């Protein structure tokens, strides 16, 4: 699987940035936020199914990571660490609200699917694509959280299994099993919906 460009980073450079943040240079933290905001925002958005709420939770995750920078020892990459913090925030939100994603009022029909279309896409293609994505998001939302997070990290965010293991606090082998089972569950859910493939 090709690695996502957003996951490419320079750990040495990151250590220097973190040291400067700890020395009080708050503005330098913007480098890390800019580098990983797309990843963290997309991850949270997939987990919660609400782009507006995702913005707040992803920002919270970055603030929380900044406040805990002294505890970051550089054993893993900063991206892994901030993703873990973001996922924990997502689980808190889902637990407190006792809900699955996309079931709040105004979102019963699934999340807002991006309106980005290929120039060569016909109107029919566009409608089909949006239906396909909406069905996919509904199916994702019905997956248990532990399978959803493994699937999103692996196949949407493009992480390697050892990295997923670090984010989720499990072994790489266990992450592999979760991703496999999650794909099987997702396929069954999509088939039960009769979703266009």
């Amino acid at each position: 699987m090709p690695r996502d460009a957003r996951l490419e980073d320079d750990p040495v450079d990151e250590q220097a940035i973190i040291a400067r943040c700890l020395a009080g240079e708050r503005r330098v933290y913007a480098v890390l936020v800019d580098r990983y905001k797309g990843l963290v925002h997309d991850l949270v958005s997939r987990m919660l199914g609400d782009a507006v709420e995702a913005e707040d939770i992803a920002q919270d995750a970055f603030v929380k990571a900044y406040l805990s920078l002294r505890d970051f020892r550089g054993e893993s990459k900063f991206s892994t660490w901030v993703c873990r913090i973001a996922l924990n925030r997502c689980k808190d939100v889902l637990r407190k609200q006792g809900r699955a994603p996309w079931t709040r009022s105004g979102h019963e029909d699934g999340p807002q699917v991006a309106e980005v279309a290929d120039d060569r896409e016909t109107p029919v293609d566009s409608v089909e694509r949006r239906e396909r994505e909406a069905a996919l998001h509904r199916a994702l939302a019905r997956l248990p959280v532990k399978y959803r997070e493994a699937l999103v990290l692996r196949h949407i965010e493009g992480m390697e299994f050892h990295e997923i293991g670090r984010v989720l606090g499990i072994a790489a082998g266990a992450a592999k099993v979760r991703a496999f089972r999650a794909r099987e569950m997702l396929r069954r859910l999509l088939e039960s919906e009769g979703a266009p493939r």
Partner: protein
Amino acid sequence: MTRFEELLEGKLAGDLSPDENREFAALLMLDENRRAFEAHQQTVALLAGVERHAPSSSFTEEVLAGLPDRRSRPWDKVWELLWAPRVARWNVATALALSLVLVVTALAWRAQPSRTAVGPEPRPVVTLFRFSLNAPGAQQVSLAGDFNGWRTDEIFLADVTGRGHFSVTLPLKSGRYAYMFVIDGATWMTDPRAEAYRDDGFGNKNALVNIEAPTVGNGDT
């Protein structure tokens, strides 16, 4: 996972060896396996093709606005006041006046018959603290913490008895320090006898030590 499922996962990740590829191809001769593989491929393609949910253009600024100012403490303000670069305007009259003050002060100092001896500058007070760990079988144990920027190759514990009881004594100024042991340069280990712990954000805990006494003494983890 079955052998077929393991190979399927490896195939999707593109990291099968030539032998594994041959083994996988043989397993695909079964219709059931081929259908499963195709279904997984379709699901992966579907997930890989989803549109990204992009953050707003003000995302980073809003995060920065939510950060506390680490340098808002009073002594940081004093530090900044002392060290911030400034521009001083001067003229020849001011320079002559300053020179005169300096010369007069020096002459007055020399004219004094005797001066009180100046004692040695007080040395910063430190507490000697002994970090120790029982790690039978370990070749090397190092100590990383707030006090050395979490470097793992700087402070090594000694196994004086040769029985796996490693220890090192450090002079520490008063304060609260987080630390971990690193066994054989690879395995991070929390001190099982630490006085307190703090979550490290990875599901593990950093050990904490509080150095309070401003007198020379001994501690022992």
